[in-house]
């Protein structure tokens, strides 16, 4: 069974924008994991898919059911906490989705500083997109060379130290 990840809008946009070895990064991920998104993230993809090429990549994968949409259950207590941070609806629903499904091993992929910190405090499993690549290399789902290519390709979306740290992680046993 493939591992399951809930992608917040940021990592989804990054994964749909960049190409490695002639393939969109999202497709490299879809080879080795299941990607789930929240309804609000899906709605944004549908709106933006008309206008932006990268959003169309996501829209096509939604239509082909390669990316799945899951509805989060109601959790008023958690929702009240998330409301304190005034997150966007996509972030809020993505966190609710992962929080309710701890047994199903959902992990939230999120690149936003505030959302990451809130997840940490709420013990919601989460990782940066960079760390997802490291994990896939460690688990030998993606070879280290491809992992490095992905990281260097998406590097413009991250602070330099984060990128260099990730490359070092890959060099020091991240993968092959």
């Amino acid at each position, binding site marked *: 069974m493939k591992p399951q990840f809930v992608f917040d809008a940021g990592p989804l946009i990054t994964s749909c924008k960049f190409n490695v070895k002639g393939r969109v990064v999202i497709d490299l991920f879809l080879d080795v994991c299941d990607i789930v998104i929240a309804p609000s993230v899906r709605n944004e993809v549908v709106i933006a898919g008309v206008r932006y090429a990268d959003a169309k990549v996501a829209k096509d994968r939604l239509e082909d059911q390669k990316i799945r949409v899951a509805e989060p259950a109601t959790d008023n207590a958690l929702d009240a906490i998330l409301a304190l941070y005034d*997150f966007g609806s996509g972030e809020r629903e993505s966190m609710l989705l992962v929080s309710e499904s701890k047994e199903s091993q959902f992990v939230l992929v999120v690149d*936003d500083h505030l959302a990451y910190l809130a997840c940490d405090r709420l013990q919601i499993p989460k990782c940066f997109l960079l760390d997802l690549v490291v994990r896939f290399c460690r688990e030998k789902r993606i070879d280290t060379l491809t992992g490095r290519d992905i990281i260097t390709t998406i590097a413009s979306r991250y*602070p330099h130290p984060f990128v260099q740290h990730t490359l070092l992680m890959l060099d020091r046993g991240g993968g092959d």
Partner: protein
Amino acid sequence: MTLTIQLDKSIEAFITHQAHEQRISLETAATELVRVGFEVKLRELHQRYVRGEYSLGRLAKELGITTWELVHVLEEHRLQIHNLPLAV
């Protein structure tokens, strides 16, 4: 979008002056002022995002656009897309 709005006297005077000085129409001068105003507001909100006070979704919400549109707007304005901390 076409809007009809009532301007404050000082803004009206500024737009009239700009139009005269730059030899442009009042409409063009007003549009430029709105564009500059948006740019200032965008940078002000973006600063809050970069400082980690806002999430990407919150920034999009404040600007009345989707996160997908926001990322493209930030790219167009050459603004930092992530809000992760930078090492000094």
